[in-house]
């Protein structure tokens, strides 16, 4: 009788404290040994921006493909550049990788839009990491995003150079396309 009543009083508040609201579960950092995802990473994962693909052959598109499946991270970042102003008018990405990698590349596409190509080359992985509060173990994801931006720009420039060598014919083709 005593135990029955006493037991419930003993256990219920304890359970409520341990399992219910406050305490361990409500504090994201405490769970998982401090490896909590920042809200922004989760947001980019849940609502990814700029997922998609541009035509690879399009001369105004630069494609950066970095990483390796063996490492668990592959990012494809594409930029569409306005020929005359050298400004990036659109960007999209596709990523095979963890949540942090997806978020890093998503952030990268957001940040390059509307900027000059020279400007985006100055985007540092540390800025991306700080924006997403990436833990040390995930810093390589932001590095890969930085590499992807650079690779996309490089690819665009290489394409432009190759097309430029072809001379007038190409200019006429481009005029016809426009």
């Amino acid at each position, binding site marked *: 009788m005593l*135990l*029955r009543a006493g*037991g*419930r009083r003993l*256990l*219920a508040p304890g*359970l*409520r404290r341990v*399992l*219910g*609201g406050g305490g361990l*579960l*409500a504090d*994201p950092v405490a*769970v*998982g040994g401090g*490896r*909590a*995802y*920042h*809200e922004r*990473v*989760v947001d980019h*994962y849940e609502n*990814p921006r700029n*997922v998609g*693909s541009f035509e690879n052959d399009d001369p105004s598109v630069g494609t950066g*493909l*970095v*990483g*390796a*499946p*063996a*490492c*668990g*991270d*592959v*990012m*494809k970042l594409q930029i569409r550049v306005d020929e005359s102003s050298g400004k990036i008018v659109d960007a999209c990405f*596709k*990523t*095979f*990788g*963890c*949540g942090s*990698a*997806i978020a890093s590349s998503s952030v990268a596409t957001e940040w390059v839009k509307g900027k000059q190509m020279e400007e985006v080359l100055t985007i540092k992985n540390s800025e991306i990491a700080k924006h997403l509060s990436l833990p040390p*173990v995930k810093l*390589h994801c932001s*590095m*890969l995003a930085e*590499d992807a931006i650079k*690779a996309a720009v490089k690819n665009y420039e290489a394409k432009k150079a190759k097309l430029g060598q072809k001379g007038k014919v190409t200019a006429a083709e481009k005029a016809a396309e426009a």
Partner: protein
Amino acid sequence: MALSRRLLPVLLRRGGCLSAFPSAARALSTAAVPADAEEEEAVTIKGVRISGRPLYMDMQATTPVDPRVLDAMLPFYLSRYGNPHSRTHLYGWESDAAVEEARARVAALVGADSREIFFTSGATECNNIAVKGVMRFYRDRRRHVITTQTEHKCVLDSCRYLQQEGFEVTYLPVRPDGLVDVAQLADAIRPDTGLVSVMAVNNEIGVVQPLEEIGRICREKGVPFHTDAAQALGKIPIDVNQMGIGLMSLSAHKIYGPKGVGALYLRRRPRIRVEPQMSGGGQERGIRSGTVPTPLVVGFGAACEIAAKEMDYDYRRATTLQQRLLDGIRGQVDDIVINGSMEHRYPGNLNLSFAYVEGESLLMGLKEVAVSSGSACTSASLEPSYVLRALGVEEDMAHTSIRFGIGRFTTEEEVDRAIELTVHQVKKLRDMSPLYEMAKAGIDLKSIQWAQH
């Protein structure tokens, strides 16, 4: 008993992981509480807010304690709390009697004698005693250990430790289906082999090794056969005599028992001797000193008793649910690989690789289902699971694996919901995946020169 009956509804309501529905079957479910039922139960975790607790499908990591087991344990916490080694009063005697009864139940489940069961803190400790204890005891005559590449970390680490002490270890490779090549094992046995250690059911991929064959070979060659049966106990029939097992590691929290207790089986005929790893008062016949934790041990015994009765039913049910899960997922997404043999498998463990999708990102999307992954990102280092690598799974596929665990309390609704969520997330991630895009365009991914940084 009355105490526990009154407490159980409190536990069910407050615990949140068990629903508050009246019917007994539903009450035992670990399905997430519906959102409208209790808003205060909403959980914010890792920056993510989910309505109620996730569906638990990670039975290989641990299992919920069966309420019947908890019933058996509680009196030993609250009223019969004596130390089983106290020889002078009722508390000690009744505690000791309970321990011995539990020991008999554990022994019965594996076809052993009570005197061959020694309680420890868990399968890790058992593996340590088995590997290090046996080799150190016979260190003058036996210098070689044989094990497999897919063993649990504690076995592999104990072997590495022995290597530092000067012993030699052979880590046998496994076939792509996860099974060890028995002929290769037989060849590897040397005159100075002191132990063969092969786990019964693999925790990651669920494959069942051919224990009878291995046991027969070891018996012929006079080498003790140790098996880590933590995932096998109570799930597949084990008979230590039929399988020629000399040492066996058992764990309670994999069969709906409490965490913190396990048992080591040590054969008496022929007697296997070990050097104790814990020094102390000589409890457990000198094999493992330390007070035997009566409530945990009683819980272990109760879990074994229940498992003995319900093993067949659980097995058939797990098989049905696994088939349902597999058909449900395969029916909606393609490019899926099952890791490990389908024929020699415990049905409660399904390890799938989803091509072109990374494991951690899939897990992040599956936050309403508690599953595990063999992906690098989820391990402390950035290396993919060594078990999957041992199977010969390519690194990019090893990054994509998800392990689904089905258990006694898994319901069909949970499986259906898991299918729904998994398919949704896989499709979403494949849309985001450059590899899927390239594969669909017909590009052979193996031919690409990746720019590694």
